[in-house]
């Protein structure tokens, strides 16, 4: 049956696929190895190994710790708000094709492609004209706009798989819309809501352009602080921070059910 196979093409595909996998993993491995260097430069591979940069990081890096805490606060606020508002909107808009629904959906999704640096400047101008001081809260407002499209995408994927007849049943049995939302809709779309919240959190904690525009010494987030360090003088402590982030990411991925991330798949 398989005599028509094109061996060179198949071989090329598998080789390129293997190369792609190496390319995916390599930087993470390099970062982890790098964090155990004993040197002051990014020489790779290092000539000698140590945990000195982790010691440096945990013992005397109050600014990095403060920036990490600021990132965490902003991400938690942004996640809570974008997940709550985004879920409500996504449940209404999922699968609807009428003009208003499509227009609203495009509006809510558009921050995904709107250049974030332009949005950051726009927010900065508004705050400055209105005389509002920069704070973690103003930063979180920007992050909500950035994170909401991901929540909507995840939740509508889950909501579209829901059988609409269930809501008709609930209504015919006398359930109000609010009651049906909490007892029927929400439990069914929970995987979508949870993965939406996770992606919103990761988006916020990783976001740069809006944070950069809205940053002052009190609202500096971790990515901005690390960027400033790397711009100024390749401080190898960044490698240790990276090691911690990679370890935390792997831990979270192992704890959280991986299937929740795969879009459009039914949970068993």
């Amino acid at each position, binding site marked *: 049956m398989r005599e028509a196979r094109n061996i060179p093409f198949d071989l090329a595909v598998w080789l390129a696929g293997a190369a792609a996998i190496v390319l995916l993993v390599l930087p993470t491995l*390099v970062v982890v190895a790098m964090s155990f260097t004993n040197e002051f430069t990014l020489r790779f591979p290092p000539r000698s190994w140590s945990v000195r940069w982790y010691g440096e990081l945990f013992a005397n890096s109050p600014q990095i710790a403060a920036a990490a805490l600021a990132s965490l606060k902003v991400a938690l606020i942004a996640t809570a708000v974008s997940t709550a508002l985004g879920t409500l909107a996504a449940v209404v808009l999922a699968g609807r094709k009428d003009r208003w629904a499509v227009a609203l959906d495009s509006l809510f999704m558009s921050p995904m*492609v709107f250049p974030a640096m332009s949005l950051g400047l726009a927010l900065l101008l*508004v705050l400055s004209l209105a005389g509002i001081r920069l704070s973690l809260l103003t930063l979180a407002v920007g992050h909500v706009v950035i994170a909401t499209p991901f929540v909507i995408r995840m939740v509508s994927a889950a909501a579209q798989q829901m059988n609409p007849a269930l809501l008709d049943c609930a209504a015919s049995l006398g359930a109000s819309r609010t009651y049906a939302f909490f007892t029927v809709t929400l439990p069914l779309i929970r995987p979508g809501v949870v993965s939406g919240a996770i992606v919103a959190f990761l988006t916020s904690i990783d976001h740069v352009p809006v944070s950069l525009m809205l940053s002052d010494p009190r609202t500096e987030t971790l990515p901005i602080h690390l960027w400033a360090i790397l711009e100024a003088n390749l401080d190898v402590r960044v*490698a240790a921070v990276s090691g911690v982030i990679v370890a935390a990411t792997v831990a979270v991925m192992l704890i959280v059910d991986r299937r929740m991330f795969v879009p459009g798949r039914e949970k068993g």
Partner: protein
Amino acid sequence: MGKAGGKAASFLPAAPLALFFAVAYLLPVAILTAVSFRPDLRASGWTLAHYAAFLGDGFNLSILLDTLWLGLQVVGVTLLIAYPLGLVYMRAGPRLRALLVFLILLPLLTNTVVRTFAWMAILGRNGLVDTVAATLGLADGPLRLLYSRTGLVIALAQIYLPLMALPLNNSLAKIDGNLLRAAEGLGASSAHLFRTVILPLSLPGAVAGCLLVFAGATTAFITQTLVGGGRQIFMPLFIYQQAIGVQRWAFAAAASVVFALTVMAIVYAFNRFARARLRGVDA
């Protein structure tokens, strides 16, 4: 209750988010646009001077075009890497698929600064590439890949690869296995099968990936500045410098509007074009 009233009421749960977006997104963008037509941030009167200054200067225009070109280059490279990866994913069993999803998500979930930092260590002086090249005797001296265009495109392509791979794999996994077996049974070679069956059916995922990667690569401030270096200036850094650096607010606003309009126009045009071509393909 009339039909229109019921319809408006059905939108009610979306109202809080709509209100939030009106205040935190539409209003700021409207004010950004208004300021770009003002002589200065707090000055009154209207002017086109900032647009004239931005669009009339060859240097500024070259930054804009170069940023868009960078986005296209990165999209091209991610497509070249993501398709073989997707074909492996398509033919993989459930265990290998789960592993691949994990490997694709891992870089996506680690911080952008971390990924950028990794590329500084790979491409930098005495970095991984230099060491390997020197060991293999391929180069006698540093290759200077860090701060080069090639290095920047490779780094951005790797960093945004997950955004291409996830939707593409999703599309590829949906292709009916019977179609592939039928084509093979009729004697189609793998290359022919790819061109006539797999490629057209996977386009919806590829299109979604292209849009995400383009939007990401053109605004990737951290990677652009750290791996691209000081001599390559792209629009995000340009806007940042004009606004925060020299406080030319109205000019920075005009540059922001032009940048946002071009990116959105390209995304919109590409989307329209792709949808027209894809009519008939089940997304």
